């Protein structure tokens, strides 16, 4: 499609009053209604980051326009405005530039939200401008996003701004990132230009925590690879942007393991209406809650049992994120707004001191003597002390430790001490219980957004297996740097994480890879899930919390092995994506290589093999919560390697693993 042609459909507006009625007749109303009610009603929230120059507004306009979401009166408005501006083509960016000042100055002021739907999904777009307020805007728009679109101008390559967007995506823990290399029409649709940008971006992104990055060459202006596949870039084999948005796997991005229920409000009807009813209202922030579950109320620590989960529509058997429900407890204990209800065996950290990464969002800089508040879940506490550890240059990732204050758009690691404790997890583990805002007590402005870091959480986890927390444990740094170790050994380590259903063949392949590495003279060590359960993890059962802990411990052991220069081969069902992601993140923090290898064998085949007779026992009802039978397996959406396809021998599979290691310079 050329720029000239794109304006033609604008003329079919017709008389506004008549159109609606006429179109219905084409399809029987009841059928339309049923089709709408039945269609997959998945919701994907995505954020777009980029400046006006990158063509971001045009891209969104194109998405809406080509997916037929622009209505006649909106289009008429754009058409008139385009003509007024003297444009020869339909300026789709005008669809999204909303406020008068934006239209006058040709910039986008703040986050704007757009909505559209296809047969596959509903979408909420948070459109965030990339000019000088980029950081604040992007944090505002992208905090709840499942996916971020980062725009790169093909002519300019990876600019500082693209790096900022990538960094903020990483900071906000956005699970999926799509890099749209735009304006391919202006570089003659050359594959080399695209490849160079991919390489450059990858090099930067490798230092961040971006679990899933996809690159798409597009021309938003002409529509190439936005909704329709481009005819001018046959070398690009991937799907167009909209297809990717419709199909990217987001179901496993939620944390269904750690039960977290911050209480918002106590429902307590006057005594005359309902006899002694008291329920704790809130939105499930993590895990799956069921009546009968033993719980503990933090920060107080009182124990009780869930007597019932209520909703306006009746009792609820299972509550999971992001459901809003009301809990009744069997005991009359002190619970109110700010309490968090969790499972007894899987508790978050309760502390008034922690480390966080914050984005300063106010024009008033951080001031030492000023009074600030922190709002976290449903609790608000006063800030006793903020200590800036270092500011991060988002383009170079360099840390500046000589910083006392923070200004608008600064990103920094801080140490916070509060007047009263919060009940939190690291942001990496839970985006709800790991995030906070800072409020200036005098102006009431929201001055910062922050994510809580892992440090304290790890200490707490260690302490949990004992009984006391040990807040004074500090990380003892080794004097040997990773580089020195690597130099001395002649190689570095890595972790290969084999995940898949029981009986998929994980251990067989992992053992063969171990053998091969040892033959080459490279240290390798197989960490088998079953074997670990005899020792290190011998105290753990098979419920969700125990499985998470099993994966966590195994990941730590693997990390230590990788750090020491060994190739750690983990063979573990690890059914939950969140746990595997945590394992990967643990390695990413220390810049250690981590490869997720998905051994994907069909359930029937695994059950047929049943090397340990587990399926037979599960089917016979002797085993409960067996993955694949009574508990879910969340398949990796984007593994580094997928094995287990039929026809491949173990040798061939080993070869593919070795190729992966070679490709990344591990062997």
């Amino acid at each position, binding site marked *: 499609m050329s720029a000239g042609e794109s304006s033609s459909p604008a003329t079919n507006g017709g008389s*506004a*009053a*008549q*159109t*609606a*009625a006429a*179109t*219905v007749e084409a399809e029987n*109303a009841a*059928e*339309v*209604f049923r089709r*709408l*009610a039945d269609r997959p009603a998945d*919701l994907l929230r995505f954020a777009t980051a980029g400046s006006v120059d990158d063509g971001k507004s045009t891209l969104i306009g194109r998405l809406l326009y080509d997916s037929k979401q622009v*209505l*006649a009166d*909106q289009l008429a408005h754009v058409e008139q405005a385009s003509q007024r501006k003297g444009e020869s083509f339909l300026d789709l960016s005008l669809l999204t530039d*909303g*406020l*008068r*000042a934006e239209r006058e100055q040709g910039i986008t*002021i*703040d986050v704007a939200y*757009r*909505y559209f739907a296809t047969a596959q999904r*509903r979408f*909420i777009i948070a459109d965030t401008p990339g000019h000088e307020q980029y950081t*604040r805007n992007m*944090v*505002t728009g992208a*905090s*709840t996003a499942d996916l971020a679109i980062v725009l790169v101008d093909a002519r300019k390559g990876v600019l500082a701004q693209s790096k900022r967007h990538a960094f903020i995506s990483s900071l906000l823990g956005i699970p999926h990132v799509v890099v749209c290399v735009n304006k391919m029409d202006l570089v003659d649709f050359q594959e080399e230009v695209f490849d160079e940008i991919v390489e450059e971006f990858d090099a930067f992104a490798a230092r961040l925590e971006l679990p899933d990055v996809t690159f798409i060459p597009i021309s938003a202006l002409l529509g190439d690879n936005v909704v329709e596949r481009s005819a001018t870039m046959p070398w690009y084999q991937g799907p167009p942007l909209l297809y990717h948005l419709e199909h990217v796997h987001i*179901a496993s991005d*939620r944390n269904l393991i750690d039960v977290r229920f911050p209480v*918002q*409000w106590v*429902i307590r009807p*006057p005594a005359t209406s*309902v006899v002694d009813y008291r329920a704790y209202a*809130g*939105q499930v922030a993590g895990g799956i809650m069921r009546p009968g579950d033993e719980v503990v109320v933090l920060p107080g620590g009182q124990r009780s049992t869930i007597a019932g989960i209520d909703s306006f529509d009746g009792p609820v*058997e*299972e509550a*999971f994120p*992001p*459901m*809003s429900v009301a809990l009744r407890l069997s005991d009359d204990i002190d619970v109110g707004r700010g309490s968090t209800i969790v499972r007894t065996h899987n508790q978050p950290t309760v502390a008034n001191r922690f480390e966080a990464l914050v984005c300063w969002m106010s024009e008033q800089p951080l001031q030492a003597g000023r009074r600030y*508040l922190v*709002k*976290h879940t449903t609790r608000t506490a006063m800030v006793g002390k903020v200590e800036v550890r270092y500011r991060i240059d988002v383009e170079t990732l360099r840390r500046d430790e000589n910083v006392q204050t923070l200004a608008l758009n600064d990103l920094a690691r801080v140490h916070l001490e509060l007047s009263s404790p919060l009940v939190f997890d690291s942001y990496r583990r839970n*985006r*709800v219980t790991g995030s*906070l*805002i800072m409020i200036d007590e005098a102006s*009431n*402005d*929201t001055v910062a*957004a922050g994510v809580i870091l892992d440090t304290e959480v790890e200490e707490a986890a260690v302490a949990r297996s004992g009984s006391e927390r040990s807040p004074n444990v500090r990380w003892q740094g080794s004097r040997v740097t990773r580089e020195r170790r690597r130099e001395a050994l002649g190689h570095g380590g890595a972790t290969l994480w084999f995940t898949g259903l029981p009986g998929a063949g994980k251990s067989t392949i992992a053992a063969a890879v171990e053998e091969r590495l040892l033959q080459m003279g490279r240290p390798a060590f197989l960490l088998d899930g079953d074997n670990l359960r005899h020792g290190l993890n011998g105290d753990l059962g098979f419920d969700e919390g125990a499985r998470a802990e099993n994966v966590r411990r195994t990941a730590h052991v693997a990390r230590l092995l990788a750090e020491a220069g060994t190739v750690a081969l983990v063979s573990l069902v690890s059914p939950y994506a969140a746990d595997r992601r945590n394992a990967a993140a643990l390695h990413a923090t220390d810049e250690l290589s981590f490869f997720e290898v998905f051994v994907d064998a069909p359930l029937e085949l695994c059950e047929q093999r049943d090397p340990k007779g587990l399926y037979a026992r599960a089917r016979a009802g002797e085993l409960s919560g067996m993955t694949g039978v009574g508990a*879910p397996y969340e398949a990796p959406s984007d593994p580094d390697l997928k094995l287990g396809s039929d026809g491949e021998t173990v040798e061939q599979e080993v070869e593919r693993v070795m190729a992966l290691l070679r490709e990344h310079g591990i062997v």
Partner: protein
Amino acid sequence: MPATYHLSHLRTLESEAVHVMRETVAEFERPVLLFSGGKDSIVLLRLAEKAFRPGPFPFPVMHVDTGHNFPEAIEFRDRRVAELGERLVVASVEESIRTGRAVEQTGPRASRNGLQTITLLDAIAEHGFDAAFGGARRDEERARAKERILSFRDRFGQWEPQKQRPEVWSLYNGRIQKGEHARVFPISNWTELDVWQYIAEEELEVPSIYFAHEREVFSRDGMLYAVSPFVEMMDGEVPFAARVRYRTVGDMSCTGAVESDAATLSEVVAEIAATDVTERGETRADDRVTEAAMEDRKRQGYF
């Protein structure tokens, strides 16, 4: 319950809205829910039931009555609030005009729509409300697309789009100074279609004017207006009978009807799904006056 622990998009939006309502009542002292009898505020009432039952609503329900409303909407309002057993506050534009706070427009294009802002702000001040739930949605209009869920108003009731507080995750900052207030829009992220699908799923009653009915109308600026004592017809405007329904319920002087045969909820949903004109572009004269009509009214304190 599916083993995948999946919430449909409508239930996800519902849960978000319930969370917003509970946060608001917890963080503010005197909230109020603005109810017009229209579909969006009907949804708000159901969401309030979801958030606070079996308890009473921790706030009254308020209607800003222009005196030019559809009688069907007023009848429905009184009945619905009575069914819920909640308290209704009516703020009257008529009263504002009588006391000289507002000045009535004259002529065929006269509307009391703009005067509602005065009555609304006066009522908020009089009752000391510090948070007002509204049924505005971001898909309605370009200015609304930029507004926060919890939207701050200064002591003059005004909205400053460039000075909005950052709104991150689901952490709403409800702190205000005395005299200021917040507008809270729990269904910000819903579309018109979502609202209708929800009404259908929840089997909510809506005023009869949302369904196709015979009505005496006349055509102006490509819209169909009801013939009523509140609108003066101009030369050349001829009344005729038509089968129409309303997509929005506002004042009779500024709300247009669409020709439609959609007589049931499922027919309405199907019609909305197939439409190619936005509800405000189609039926609201108030948004057509200037390119930034809604933005200007919002800045002044409109809903």
